[in-house]
Structure formats: structure tokens, C-alpha cells
């Protein structure tokens, strides 16, 4: 072996040895020493400790207290399969089913305040989820439950595609076009609620989920929606008679609003408020 090869060889050996030492330290403490010395119960053996450190927890201790039955707000989970189905409807087929809807959900021009939600332009995922919630009974309405139970999820998607293709509620384009006066500096308390919320009371801004701009998946656009309907829904959420909001977001927020605020919010949205005024 030449002297140069020798020095390369010993250099490599040195680097690998130091690295192995560092790794032994990191893995030894991270996987064996620390998990067992942090008071986590039930780590009897080294393999338990490693399992814990990998994040694969085992809950050996069964609960012996009586748990209240889980209250499920909705059976719709946004999995790949559900999303594919909800987004993949056929508007043509939906149109023929929608003939049954227009008895109640008439064109907005004829009804200033009907208490009926306007469906034209409604986001696909919103329509799909609400129909499924009516079917499962997590959202209550005699009429709508009967309607939803007579349809298949495939038909929900078709209806959703049809309503989404209609002009009415603003299209959810995912755009965050900037405007002005959409902060705490806005003097109007209702507009402030919409764009900035009221953190002192723990109220999130309506716009952060309902747009314009960002839309939470499954959250409807509110602009141009029927005022009476909006107000009734806020009241229903506040009183808990409507409870199909996942994670209780709307029940929490509505419960913090005053009746006057609900009315004002419903009316400003129904008037086509888009924040630019």
C-alpha cells in the first residue's frame, strides 16, 4: 500500500468511526435511554422503548371508565374515494333529478327572503355533503331527509355537478384577489367580523373559510345566499339544533354571536356583499 493510499484509508476510517459514534449516541439516547426515562408507562423492554420512539404507540391499558357514546357530526369523510365520487358527477343527469327540487328551491328573483337556500352555483362538495348528512340524519329536515334517502350517492354527485354549473352564488375559484379595508381598521363592525373576526371573543373571520378567497373544503360561499336562511342556520347552530359541522366550528362561532350580529351578517351577505364596497 502506498503512503497516499494509507492516508486515504485511515482518513476514511476516522470519518466513519466518528460518524458511527455520533449515530450511536443519537440513536442510543433517542430510542433507548430517553423514552424509558421520561415516565412513559408500560415500556418494559428495549423493543417497547423503540416502538414508542418510532411513534407506534401501544395502548395496553384499557379504559375502565364508561365513555359517553361518540356523537358523530357527519358521516362524510373527505377521503380520496369520496372526493372522486363527489367531484365526478354528471350535470346532465343532475338536471333531470333537479326538476324535483325547484318546487321549493325556486329562482331567487321570485323570492326575496324565502328561508330556502339558493342552490345555483353551490359548490359540489357542499351539496354532496349536505345531502349525505340529510340521509344519515346528522342534519335534520323531514322533507330533505326523505329526498336524500330516495337518492343514491352517485345522484348526489350528479345534482352537485348540476347546481355548480348554474349561475348564482359566486364561483369558488380559489382566488385570493386583494381588496382594501379587510382588517381591524375597518370601521364597520359587521365587515370586521367577516374579514378579521373577533379574537377577543374567540370568533374566527367568516371569510377565512367561506371566502371570498380561501374556502375550507365543504364550506359554502355565502355571498348572495338567502338572508332568512342564513340567519336561521346561525340560530340553529347556536342552539345546537343543527350540528353537522365537523369539529363544532360553526356551533362554537354561532354560539358567540349576538342575535343582532347574526341578522346583520345574514343581511350583508344576502345583499351580495363582496367586501369591495
Amino acid at each position, binding site marked *: 500500500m502506498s503512503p497516499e493510499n494509507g492516508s486515504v484509508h485511515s482518513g*476514511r476510517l476516522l470519518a466513519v468511526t466518528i460518524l458511527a459514534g455520533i449515530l450511536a449516541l*443519537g440513536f442510543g*439516547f433517542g430510542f433507548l435511554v430517553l423514552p424509558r426515562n421520561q415516565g412513559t408507562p408500560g415500556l418494559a423492554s428495549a423493543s417497547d422503548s423503540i416502538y414508542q420512539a418510532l411513534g407506534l404507540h401501544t395502548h395496553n391499558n384499557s379504559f375502565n371508565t364508561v365513555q359517553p357514546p361518540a356523537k358523530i357530526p357527519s358521516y362524510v369523510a373527505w377521503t380520496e374515494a369520496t372526493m372522486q365520487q363527489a367531484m365526478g358527477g354528471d350535470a346532465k343527469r343532475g338536471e333531470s333529478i333537479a326538476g324535483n327540487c325547484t318546487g321549493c328551491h325556486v329562482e331567487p328573483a321570485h323570492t326575496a327572503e324565502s328561508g330556502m337556500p339558493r342552490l345555483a352555483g353551490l359548490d359540489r362538495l357542499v351539496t354532496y355533503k349536505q345531502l349525505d348528512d340529510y340521509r344519515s340524519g346528522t342534519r335534520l329536515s323531514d322533507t330533505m331527509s326523505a329526498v336524500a334517502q330516495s337518492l343514491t350517492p352517485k345522484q348526489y354527485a350528479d345534482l352537485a355537478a348540476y347546481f355548480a354549473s348554474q349561475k348564482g352564488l359566486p364561483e369558488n375559484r380559489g382566488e385570493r384577489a386583494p381588496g382594501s379595508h379587510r382588517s381591524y381598521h375597518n370601521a364597520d363592525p359587521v365587515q370586521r367580523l367577516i374579514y378579521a373576526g373577533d379574537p377577543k371573543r374567540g370568533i374566527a373571520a367568516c371569510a377565512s373559510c367561506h371566502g371570498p378567497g380561501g374556502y375550507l373544503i365543504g364550506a359554502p360561499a355565502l355571498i348572495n345566499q338567502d338572508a332568512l336562511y342564513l340567519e336561521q342556520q346561525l340560530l340553529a347552530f347556536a342552539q345546537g339544533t343543527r350540528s353537522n359541522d365537523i369539529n363544532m366550528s360553526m356551533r362554537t362561532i354561532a354560539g358567540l354571536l349576538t342575535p343582532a350580529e347574526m341578522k346583520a351578517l345574514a343581511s350583508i351577505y344576502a345583499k351580495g356583499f363582496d367586501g369591495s364596497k
Partner: protein
Amino acid sequence: MERSRLLSLAHLWAAFLCFLPAAFLGMWQLMMRSPLRVPLDDPNAYYASLTAHGSIMAYVFPTLFIMGFGYAITVSTLGRSLRGESWAWMGFFFCVVGGVMALVPIGFGRSSVLYTFYPPLVGSVWYYLGVALVIIGSYFWVALMLINFSAWKSDNPGKPVPLAMFAISACALLWGWTALGATCEVVFQILPVSLGLRHTIDAGLARTLFSVTLHAIVYFWLIPAYIAFYTLMPQAAGGRLYSDTMGRITFVLFLVFSIPVGMHHLFMDPEHGSGFKFVHSVLTFIVALPTLLTVFTIVASLEIAGRVRGGKGLLGWIRTLPWGEPMVLAVGLSLLLLAPGGFGGLINMSYGMNAMIHNTSWVTAHFHLIFGGAVVIMYFAIAYELWPRLNARPLVSKRAACLQLWLWFWGMLIMTLPWHAAGLMGQPRRYAIFDYSDPAVAKMASLDITSVVGGLILLFSVLVFFYVLFRSTFARPEESVSPIRYALAVNPSATVHPLLNGFVFWNVLLLALTLISYGYPIGQFFFLHNQDAPARSLSQEVLR
């Protein structure tokens, strides 16, 4: 040689021209978060602006700058023309087109996903394709750096590769490896959703893949600054580099250790257990070593220069250093910024203490101080060093350049120190607007306004920088152009340890270490399918 000057110049101009609007956006964002009134006070505008500011400052600006600097180093250290110059122009073209392609949809509010992409947020396809083009463009550069490096080595067997070339090649390799994380995330996860082919995204996997890039990118930005520390500053100060070997060890350590540390960005994430987080925490401490080595070597080199210039006594050498030289001044100021920045970094990388500052303004303040401060101040100094060489015109003027560096230094401190404090008080990051009528928030108002003052100083500094660049570009041409001169080591040796003259072994080590530290954390997602979050592309529905 003449054409390669144009190549470097094009990259640097493109980098600084996108830096300018991004600086203004940053200023507006600072004001937006403060109690002051600003036009377009809308969270939507804030998030669009944040995406643009971050995408430019983190991807487009440093990448173009480093590419340009890399070409200049290649030509000047190896003393021959660049191989594959037309490919370099191709890479430049990709970066510029990609940058524009990414910025346009942000401007329309179609890609307010923040510059870290944050699935399940999904923006316009064009934004991601634009970022991908920037990365592809930079890969041309990576390939060219390595081709030129190995071609010179095989033409000069046994000779040490010049330190600056060695370092920029380490930088290229580092970027080549680390960019794969974000590239995989964009290509295999985000683009399918953005194109409407899929409706859910594994957010845990996406965040983990991004973390492969997220921390090492910082060292990609940092290495050019360190190249200036080691090879340009001692020369500008009239001294010599304390140790060439120390430099090589530093750059090799950066290459090996910068990738397997990325999970310290995920300490609070639920998708990983504590074991690998701890391993990454330990490895992150190791990556502090090259910085400590550098601080030691550079201060020693400064001392050598100071003593050569007649400095006496324990600290007398500091006074005799040529602080009117932009390069020397920038290094001094950069080291001063590196101290609080590094200290903050130690807190961030500590598994326990991280919980205290997680997702607060502290983190934003930290990376502005260390990247915007310690690193970008060196980019300015490098520009001042290169400009006369690339333009064949003198720098007009050194006084204005030094004023600009001082303004940047003070502006950065005044902006980031109160910002850190607000973070410690619990101010969250990524928030567009704060309710200052809330007593808990009102306490931070004076800190936020102080930051705005710092921001204004920084903006003024940017304007002075452009003033110097323009004046120097249109100055009277010089007869003879002095080449870039690199510092000699105190004891320059004709040979160097073979392991410190190439990267093959270090690449193997890096890959092994990455596999050990990221193998399970990434692999687990292929058998634990519990992180899928709904995500939808709205741009596709509009196209339909």
C-alpha cells in the same frame, strides 16, 4: 472569458432585479402586521405577498446569485474558460422563465400557498411548474460546476483544487442532493392534485420530503458567504487565510451533515415519533461545528491581516484593519449578525426548547437575521467585489458601499431583535393581521413598530445598493481589469489530503447518513396511510 463575464453578470442582474420588488413587498408585510394603516389591508393580499416575497427571496434570488457567483469562481480560479457555456445560458433561461411563471399566478391571487407550499393548500399548476423550472435551471448549473471541477482535476492530477472552486462544487453537490426532496414533493404529490388527478394529499409525507430540502437549502445559501469569508476577505484585508485545510473540512462537513438534520423543522409535527426527531437534533448540533470552525479561522485570518498592518496588543489589530474595504466591513458585520442568529438557531434546534418558540414570530425573525442579515450582507459584498471585474469599471463608490452595509446591519438588527421578542411573547407567525385593541396584543405594538423602522432602514439600504450598482455600471471604463484575487493560505501547500480534494467518499457518507436518518421517517408513510388530507385544485374546475 469575455462571454463568461456576461454570463455571470446576467445572473447577478436577474437576481438583484427580482430582489428589489421582493424587498418592497417585505416592507409592506411588516407594516401590515403592525398597528399602522396600510393600503390593501386584506389578509388575502398579505398571503399573496408573503408567497411572492418568500418564493423570490428563498428560491429565485439566491439561486440566480449563487449560479452567477459559481460561474465567476469557475473561470477565475481554474484560469480557463467555462466548459458548456451554452448549457449555462439554457439554465439561466429556465430560471428566468420559471421565476416569471411562478410569480404571475401569485399576482392573481391564485397561488397563495406560502413559499413552503404547505399542503393541503394547493395553488395554480403554473406556480409549481415555475418553481420546478427554476430547480431544473439550477441543475444545469450543478452539472456544469461538477463537470468543470472534474475536468480540471483530471487535467491537473495531484494538484489541489483551489479552495473557492472546491467550496462552490460542494455547494453545487449539496443543492443537487437536497433539492430532490422538494422536487419529489412537487412532482409526485402536489402536481397530481394541482392537475385535478387526485383529491387528497399525504400532508405528513409532503412535510417530511420538504424538510429534506428546507434546512439544507440554508447551507446552499450560506456557502457562498463562507467562500467570501475564506477566499476573498483575507485578500481584501491585506492578509492571508489562516488555514486552507480548515476551509476544506468546513465545506465537507456542510455537505455531509446538512441534509440529515431537516427534521428539526418537524419537532412539533405529529407524523413522527420522538426517536428520529432526537437523532436529527443531535446531528443538527454537529452541523454547528463547521460554523464554529469558520468563526475561529476567519477571526484568526483577520488578526493576521491586522497584525501585518501594524496592529499591536491583544485587540489592537482590530483597529488597523481596513474597514473602508466593503469586503472586510461586510465580514465583520456578518460575524456580528451571525452571533445572535446562531444563538437563536441553537434554541430552535434543541428538541425541548423548540416547543417554546414553535410557530412564533421568533422563527421568522431568526431566519431573517441569519439569512437576510449574515448571508445577504455577504452577497452585497460579493457583488461589490465582482462588479468592477465583470464590468471592467471601477466601483463607485466604496464609501457609498460601506454606508449601504452599515445601513443593512443596523436595519436588520432593529428589525429582527424586537421581532424575536414579540415571538417570545407568543406572537404567532403567518398571521396577516393582529387586533391591537386586545391588551395581550397591544403589548407587542411598540416592538412591531420598531421592526417597521428597521425595515425602512433596510429598504433605504437596498436603494443605496442599487445606486452603487448603477453608478458602477455606467462609470468610465478602466484600461486594465484586475482579475478576482483569492487569498493565499499562511502555509500554502503544494498538495492536499486526497480526501479533501474530491467528493466521492463524502457523497457515499452523505447518502448513507441520509438513508439512516430519513429512511424510516419517509418509508413509514408507505405502510401507514393515515395522513391523507383533502386537497383540491380549483384552477382545474375553472379550466373545465
